[in-house]
Every structure is written in structure tokens, then in C-alpha cells.
């Protein structure tokens, strides 16, 4: 389905005519990786990520991408190889999901502590058990306390664009954190759309110089001990440890404005087809009495439902979270400024609060608003279940009802039989 090549010469001086092509989300991610010119990719196949790494392998085999590809024996090694590569100065990339992400958790947690600017796509997949190879956000949500930046995509174009931007974001000196680009398994991974390919020369200019290991390196020319033992109750151990953690939090906080500036720069360079809300998208929210909140590919159907409800006279809007980690507290606070009832749709479960994770995170923002906003958690789309326009009409209806009555302590299970 790929009808063009990466390296077609620009057709005009100012901005080349967009190269249009059809591709699935996994392929778009691979093309985005190629545009960012990593030195090293490490791969281990897992459904529904597989076609992404197959595409990468083919791009490299065809000489369209100059990167060392490591076919590691498992996800744990995938991430470990890349950590070694990054410490030696390589720009690095991989992709995984679900059980693969669980298996790599040990090096995963460590990546942000070492401040290594790795980029990893999570082609989101629900958690097992029960056994399932289908989409859901449980994998990415489960690791949200590990210090990685996580951005969720809505469309195939957004997958491609966000993938490229993720490399510059990760390597930004004020950030220096690993980045997950999350794209929904099944719906985005295999969903085919028309996309516009950004121009490689312009992407090169956008990316600037690679700067991976200026702060921590394994290099005989500047020998250092990476990760000496810290902590304990004596000496400067605890202070050292705290300095690491505070640094990670500062990088997270800085990421909010870096992400915002980067999305603006990207849209300015590549045009309106490449403009995406960096942190939080406000959709038909200006005079909305109530709103629904979404994440990832479900947003398309949700927007259709909102449009239809609007046409029927409902004052409903939509809030889409793009950047989940760091949580965009201020941007969400702004979006919620006029909202009097809120329905939050999650594709995963927060077992501790008996609700969705995004709902639970949002409660903190509602507290900061300083006024009571009734909010309801909806959980749907688990294990690949479809969230349709009809589903979102139900979400809209039940959220509107909160204007009249208190929300339930229980989540609404959207794909349940009852």
C-alpha cells in the first residue's frame, strides 16, 4: 500500500508538495522512526506490534534506513541493548506491548533513572489474564509510575508525527527522559489511513544535532562509573538518590512546555495537516455545560457522537488527553473551567480505585478546580472491544444525567453484557 518513497526530492523551494500515502499505524510509526534517523533499533516481535518491527527490518534491509538492527532474544534484552547503545551515544528505538512490556519492566524502570532518551512505541494491548492479544491501555497504564513520558495518538498521521517529535523531545536537555508513543493495538496498529509524509530534509532540520549521552556515558575517552551504589542511611547516599528523583520530576515538568513548543514548531514547518494538540485537546468546549474525556483512537468515534449531540442541541464538549505522562494538570484545569459534569472513558482498569486510571488522575485536577464537578468513570474497549458512536451517545447521556444526580461510585462498564 506504500505508494511513495521516503527520499523523493522536494518539488518546490518553499515547502514541498506533500507526499500522500496510505498506510497502517504500525507502518506510520516505522516511517516516523526512519525519518528520525536512529543509530540502533532492537526488536522482538509481539502482537499487535509485529508489523511495525517487520517494517523497520525491511526499511533497513532495503537500505532506506541506516540503523543497526538487533534481533534480541526477548524484550528484556531489547531495552538493555538500547541502554548500552545510548550510553555509547546511539539514538535508539524499539516497540513493544502487553506481556513484552511487562517482561522488560526491570530495565524499563531504570531507563528514566539513567535519563536515557530512548523512544519506544507501545502498541497498546490489554493485560493478561484472561489471555488476550487485543487492544487496550492496560499495559501502558500499568507502567505509568516508571518515569517515562507517554503520549497517546488518535490518528495514523498523529502516530507518524509524534514518533518523530518523540526523539527530539527525549533528547531535549531540559527533559532527557525516555518517551513512549502509545498507539492503540488493532484500531491504530492495523487501521489504514491517508497520511502526508513530512519531508526528510525538513525533518533533519527540525531534529537538529543528536545529543544522547552528554550527561551520562560509557566512553573510554571520558571514563565514569554509571550507577554507583547510592542510598542507605549514611554519607551523601540519600541526598544523591533524592537528587536523581527530583531531577526526573523536573524533566517531566519541563516536558510539558517542550512538548507544546515542539508541536507548534512541527505544525509551522509541515502545515495544518500536522497540527495536533500537544497536551490536551479541547473539542467544542467553549460553551459546553458538560464534557466527556477520551484517550487515543476512541476519540474519533467520540467526536462524531459529540457532533451529533451538538446537532441535537446538547451543550456537550470533548476533552482528549494526548500527553498522559507528565499529566497535563494545568491544561486540563483550563479545559475543565466551565464544565459542570464530566464523563471519563478509560480503556483500562485502576484496580485500587475501582475506576479507570485516567479518571482517577483527573480527580486530582478536579480538586484543584476548587469546585465540585460530578464525574463518572466509564471503562470500555477492553481486550479489543469496539467503542462506537453509539457507545459514546450512552456516555454523553449518562454524563448529562450528572447535572441532575450524583455520580455512581461504581464505574460504568461499557462493553458489559448487563
Amino acid at each position, binding site marked *: 500500500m506504500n505508494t511513495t518513497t521516503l527520499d523523493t526530492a522536494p518539488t518546490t523551494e518553499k515547502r514541498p508538495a506533500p507526499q500522500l500515502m496510505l498506510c497502517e499505524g504500525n507502518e506510520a510509526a516505522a516511517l516516523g522512526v526512519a525519518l528520525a534517523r536512529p543509530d540502533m533499533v532492537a526488536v522482538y516481535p509481539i502482537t499487535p506490534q509485529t508489523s511495525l518491527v517487520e517494517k523497520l527490518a525491511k526499511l533497513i534491509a532495503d537500505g532506506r534506513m541506516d540503523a543497526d538492527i538487533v534481533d534480541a532474544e526477548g524484550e528484556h*534484552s531489547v531495552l*538493555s541493548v538500547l541502554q*548500552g547503545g545510548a550510553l555509547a551515544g*546511539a539514538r535508539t528505538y524499539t516497540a513493544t506491548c502487553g506481556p513484552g512490556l511487562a517482561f522488560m519492566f*526491570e*530495565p524499563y524502570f531504570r531507563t528514566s533513572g539513567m535519563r536515557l532518551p530512548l523512544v519506544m512505541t507501545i502498541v497498546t494491548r490489554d493485560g493478561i489474564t484472561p489471555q488476550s492479544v487485543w487492544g487496550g491501555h492496560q499495559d501502558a497504564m500499568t507502567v505509568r509510575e516508571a518515569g517515562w513520558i507517554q503520549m497517546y495518538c488518535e490518528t495514523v498521521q498523529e502516530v507518524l508525527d509524534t514518533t518523530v517529535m518523540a526523539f527530539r523531545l527525549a533528547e531535549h536537555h531540559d527533559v532527557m527522559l525516555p518517551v513512549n508513543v502509545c498507539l492503540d493495538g488493532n484500531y491504530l496498529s492495523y487501521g489504514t489511513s491517508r497520511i502526508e509524509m513530512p519531508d526528510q530534509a525538513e525533518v533533519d532540520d527540525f531534529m537538529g544535532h543528536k545529543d544522547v549521552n552528554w550527561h551520562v556515558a560509557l566512553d*573510554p575517552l571520558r571514563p565514569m562509573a554509571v550507577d*554507583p*551504589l547510592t542510598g542507605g542511611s549514611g554519607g551523601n*547516599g540519600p541526598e544523591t538518590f533524592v537528587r536523581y528523583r527530583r531531577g526526573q520530576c523536573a524533566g517531566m515538568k519541563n516536558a510539558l512546555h517542550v512538548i507544546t513548543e515542539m508541536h507548534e514548531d512541527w505544525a509551522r514547518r509541515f502545515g495544518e495537516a500536522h497540527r495536533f494538540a500537544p497536551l490536551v485537546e479541547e473539542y467544542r468546549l467553549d460553551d459546553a455545560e458538560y464534557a466527556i474525556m477520551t484517550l487515543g483512537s476512541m476519540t474519533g468515534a467520540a467526536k462524531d457522537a459529540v457532533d451529533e449531540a451538538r446537532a441535537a442541541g446538547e451543550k456537550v464538549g470533548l476533552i482528549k488527553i494526548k500527553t498522559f505522562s507528565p499529566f497535563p494538570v494545568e491544561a486540563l484545569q483550563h479545559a475543565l473551567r466551565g464544565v459542570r459534569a464530566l464523563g471519563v472513558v478509560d480503556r483500562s482498569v485502576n484496580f485500587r480505585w475501582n475506576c479507570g486510571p485516567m479518571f482517577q488522575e483527573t480527580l486530582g485536577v478536579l480538586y484543584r478546580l476548587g469546585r465540585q464537578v460530578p464525574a463518572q468513570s466509564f471503562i470500555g474497549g477492553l481486550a479489543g472491544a469496539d467503542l462506537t458512536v453509539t457507545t459514546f451517545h450512552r456516555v454523553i447521556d449518562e454524563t448529562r444525567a450528572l447535572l441532575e444526580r450524583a455520580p455512581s461510585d461504581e464505574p460504568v462498564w461499557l462493553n458489559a453484557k448487563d
Partner: protein
Amino acid sequence: MGQAYSTIAFDPAKCDGCGKCMTACASVKFDSTDTTRSLIQIVRSGGARIEPPRPGEFELALCRQCADPKCVTVCPAGALGKNGTTGVIDWDASKCVDCLLCTIGCTYAGIALDEHSGRVSKCDTCEGKPACVPACPTGALRHITTARIYNEVGSWEDLFAPGLAGCQGCNTELLMRHALRRVGPDTVLATPPGCVPGMGSVGFNGTTGTKVPVFHPLLTNTASMLAGVKRQYERVGRKVTAMAIAGDGGASDVGFQSLSGAAERGERILFMVVDNEGYMNTGMQRSSCTPYGAWTSTTPIGAHGRGKTQDAKNLPMIMVNHRCEYVATASTAYMEDLYEKLDKALAASERGFAYLHVYSPCTTGWRFQSALNIEVARKAVESNFVTLWEYTPEAGLHFTRPVDKPLPVADYLKAMGRFRHLSPEQVEHIQNKVAENLRFVRKIAEQADEQ
């Protein structure tokens, strides 16, 4: 570090007392056929007088060119002195007052009165080319340099900080320092959790214990992280050695997947395992390299417990089955053997995966006196509990120090407290396992010989 020098080594098992060395010496030194003037004297031991004499009954009287020479100490005239360049004890005729005190000071009859001249005479090694050695028809005399480790290696920089916090008598520190001296400064060193970083190689709280770039990988991902490091330097055209000094637990248990994966992919890594047969740094827990019957803190001795109930995993043989570029076993009791293997492993690590498995007894965890570490390591080899060999895909597997007349394994086991509780049946099990292991490795070595 002081110098050490070449020496004339004597193997009594090969000497049949023919006296050709003495003839050669007398001829070269005095132009004489009188072998009593020879500076090397082969004498028959006291005791048995069965004719004809048999090998093993002869002893050597020859100047040992001692490092701490008593002849020099006792000389009142300053006529004897150790030559700093050659290592020979030089005798200065012009200063000698012929008191003969030196002949009493020497334990080896290495300096004696030459009745023809009326003065003392002693071996000067013929300026480094002793005439006696080529004259020996049986190979009982050899002029050997045992000193490479001290002379050549001693001049290389020790790339670890002084004062690593190893247990008293630990051979792992010895091994680490020697290995990194050899591998050199253009190295990235991985030391996964265990004794090696535990003694401070990666440092504490922002310090470092190593002069090359060093890091703590996870216990599980040493080979993978090194693979990434090495690949990136190859990509940018820089020659950097990627080396691991890992414990047996991290290699054979939880880190085995990444080790196996890296070996299968032929990652260009020098992977050295320090096998002290357990998780010693955390208090002596069992690993899959712990031998049968051994006490560890997780295989304790009690009303039901009799130590580990399984045999050790033979990790180096598993690595042979990965067809690595180089695989060898080594022991801290045989440093020359270890050095040769280190050289080969280092060279092989530029072509593919090189794996070096070094047995390093743990004074603390194996329960023996810290002064006996080398002794314990040597007994392991002499009893075939540990076999020393090397493997390459081209040449197959070969023993580097075959042991023809092994000690009973019980002699080795008795050297350590961790085996104190063993029943005769357990000892027999271990002896049988040693024999089985040996047969297994020998078979592979024989196949290599047939090729």
C-alpha cells in the same frame, strides 16, 4: 612492582643422572672435562641405593639466583650482589676475601669452593643462555620464564582503585586486577550485582572504583547492555573492548537468557565469569553453579538438610554448545594458563563472543582460612573437580592442564568447611560426578583430536 627473572627449572622425574649437563658446564666454563668443576651438580639423593638409579632419585645443586639471596646477606666484603637487570647473583672476584661464608649461607649448594682455583664459583646462567639446558637429553632441565606476569604485566597500569573492599584472601580481586590490566584502558567494563561491584568497582555514592568506564548492569542484562555499547562503537569506527566481569549466579541463573542470546548473536564481547559457586556477596546463597552437597545459606544443614541436592550446572560446556568464538575455563591457581586464555579471549572478542569461566574459591562462603585460597583452587584442579580447557570452533576442545594422577576428590572437599557435613555416600556421589564430568569433557576433547 619488583622484577622477576628467568630460571633453570629441574624436573627430577625426568632426570636419569646422565651428567651431560655437568659435562657441558665444565667444558664451557673451564674448558675442562672434570665434571666436579661444573657449576651445576646433579647428585643422587641419600637413601635408596638400588642399582641402576631411577628417575626421581636425583637432586640439583645449582645457584637459584634467589630473590632474597642469603649468600649476599652473609658476604662481609660486598663481593656478591643481585644484578637488577639480569637477576643473576654476580660474584666480584676483586672484592672477595675468600672467607667462604657464602657457601654456608646458601641452602642449595649453589655456590661452592672450586678447588682448582681456590676460590668460590657459581652459575652465571651463561649470560642468559645456559649451556647445561640444551645438553640435557631428557628435558629435565628447562630455562623458563615464569615471570611474564610480574615483568610484563607489572608494568601495565592497574585500572582498579586501590583498596577494593574484598574479603580477606579473596582471589576475585586478584583476578579483576590482572584481567583489567591485560585488557587495558580502551574498555567499557560491566560488573553486574555481586562481589565485583560489591567490593567497590563501580563505587559508592558518586565515586568510582575503576579507571575505565564501568557500570552496574542489572543482574539480568549484562550481555545485552554490553552488546549495545560494543555495536555503537563499531558503528562509529572506534575500537573499544566490551568486557563483563560477572558472578556465576548472574550468568548461570537469572542472567542466562541475555548471555545465551548475546552468544547466539555472536556479539563481540569478552564475558568473564568469576565462579565462586553461589551468591556470595549477599551471604552465600545457592546458585545453579553451587556443587552437590555444598552448604549454603539456602541449602543449610539440619535434621533434613544435607546441603545442595543437585549437581552444578556446567555453564562453560553450555557455552561451548553456543559455538562461541572462544570458551575456556581457568583457575586463579594457574595464572599463566589464565593469562594465555585471556589473551586469546580478548582477541576472539573482536570476532565474536568470547567466554572465560574462572573458578575463584570464596574464603568466606566456602569456609576455609583466607591464606589457603590458592591452595584450595589448586586442589580443585588437581582432583579434577575443576578441569582446565579451552575451545574454539576451529580446533575444538583441548585440555590445557590435564591431570594424569588426580587427587581423591575427598582431599579437595576436606579443605573446606562447606563440605564438613558430607556423608561417605555424598562424597562418593561427588567423586562419581567428577568422573562423569571428566568423561564427558574428554569425549569432546577426543573428538577434537581425531579431526
